[in-house]
């Protein structure tokens, strides 16, 4: 009899991953490429591309996600930069302050934002949508950038200064390039959820603005599994593309990860 080695401890997890990760993804592919009666077809994709409304929603969601990601970078980078500077942030307390809201259920946070807009008598719409998304996902941009800035070798900055670089040059030529992997994983952490979210959009715009995630959820809810799978597959491809783009940028991403 073969002796059990510690290697075999990976076996249950391998089986689990196959069953709950790999097979379900193949099921999406299978459902997307078949009709409800089971024969192979491309009609699910044809349906998507023939409906201008569906395509428009897709493009619109992409736009909203990009704007949200940009705003998160523009706000998050300076915050992360300040937080990583020991002069302003002696203890971890300030960082904790930014992580803390993440521990509240995001639906509650979103509803609180709705309440805030109601309170200030600002009508719900595109602006509230982007605001709510930024509010929800900003910490996911700050943390990776903060992590990488903190782990950065401070000697490099001093070296740049010694070599006669002015503060702007130091930032542009040293700090910024070194922190790009953090930005890349921040983009991943923000862009993915914003492109696929549905609840936030529903609540923040009283379901006036539909995002791609909402369309997926509605078709699944109405038992249109084949169409829903086709839409999911389109999103999956988008996610794959984003992952490839950002992970090429951050090939040493380990330092920039959130956890």
């Amino acid at each position: 009899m073969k002796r059990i080695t510690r290697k075999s401890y990976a076996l249950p997890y391998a089986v689990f991953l196959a069953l709950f990760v790999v097979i379900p993804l193949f099921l999406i592919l299978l459902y997307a490429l078949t009709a409800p009666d089971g024969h192979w077809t491309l009609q699910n994709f044809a349906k998507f591309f023939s409906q201008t409304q569906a395509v428009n929603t897709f493009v619109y969601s992409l736009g909203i996600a990009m704007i949200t990601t940009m705003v998160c970078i523009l706000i998050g980078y300076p915050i992360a930069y300040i937080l990583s500077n020991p002069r302003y942030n002696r203890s971890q307390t300030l960082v904790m302050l930014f992580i803390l809201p993440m521990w509240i259920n995001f639906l509650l946070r979103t509803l609180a934002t709705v309440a805030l807009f109601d309170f200030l008598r600002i009508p719900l719409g595109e602006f509230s949508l982007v605001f709510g998304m930024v509010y929800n996902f900003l910490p996911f941009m700050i943390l990776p950038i903060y992590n990488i800035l903190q782990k950065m070798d401070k000697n490099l900055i001093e070296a740049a200064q010694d070599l006669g670089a002015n503060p702007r040059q130091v930032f542009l030529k040293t700090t910024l390039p070194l922190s790009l992997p953090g930005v890349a994983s921040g983009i991943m952490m923000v862009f993915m959820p914003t492109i696929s979210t549905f609840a936030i959009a529903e609540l923040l715009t009283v379901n006036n603005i539909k995002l791609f995630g909402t369309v997926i959820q509605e078709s699944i809810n109405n038992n249109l599994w084949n169409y829903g799978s086709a839409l999911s597959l389109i999103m999956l491809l988008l996610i794959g593309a984003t992952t490839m783009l950002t992970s090429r940028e951050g090939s040493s991403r380990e330092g920039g990860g959130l956890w």
Partner: protein
Amino acid sequence: MLYAPLIIIVLFSFTESKVIGNWTGFSVQLYGNLFSGATSVKLIRALVNTLLIALISGMLSTLLGSVAAVGIFNLRNRTRKIIQSVSRIPILNADIITGVSLLLLFVSLGISRGFVTVVLAHVTFCTPYVVLSVMPRLHRMDPNLYEAALDLGATPSMALRKVILPEILPGIISGFILSVTLSIDDFVVTIFNIGNEGLETLSTYIYNDARKGGLTPELRALSTIIFIMVLTLLIIINRRAQKKQPARNLK
């Protein structure tokens, strides 16, 4: 700015009005309602479901993930890379895709959706995080320790329990905490796999409630309580972490 919405919720948990923004005098009625009355039964049941699902899936993922980490650590390079990249899929993937794909799995297997499917779904997206938090501990461990234990006559399982387990325990614990947090916070994966037999977690309850228009006022009180509990917990953890490892902050 980040806190303005939260402050508004806390503030308006002390008034009875149906909608936020309409102050109708100070009252702790909402807090009272949490513990008696019709809303309370539903809310408490949703809360219990949430915690139960979080604890069960947290324990399952921790067990599965910790054992897996030890196994993966000892695998040869190629197999290890394959498992690790598959393991990364649920982390990188959008929630909605995870939710839909698991829904399709359960539907094709003919499993009716309910408590069990939600737990399985949560284990799916939590376990990779456990593996991720245990792995660094194994890498940091002195490999000779295990060999030494074997040389000193320990059986492999004894060495595992007495040498490896204590070394990776902090990773296991943080993996568990992470899993429970992720599970409590999850909404998207849950809503696809919860079915329609009346099972509700806190997030699906809030979602359905908000969709019907208007939020149950009692939720403001409940979220205030949760918020304060989380706050205290984090402060305690932070204090202890700073006391324990002052060296880390000196850098």
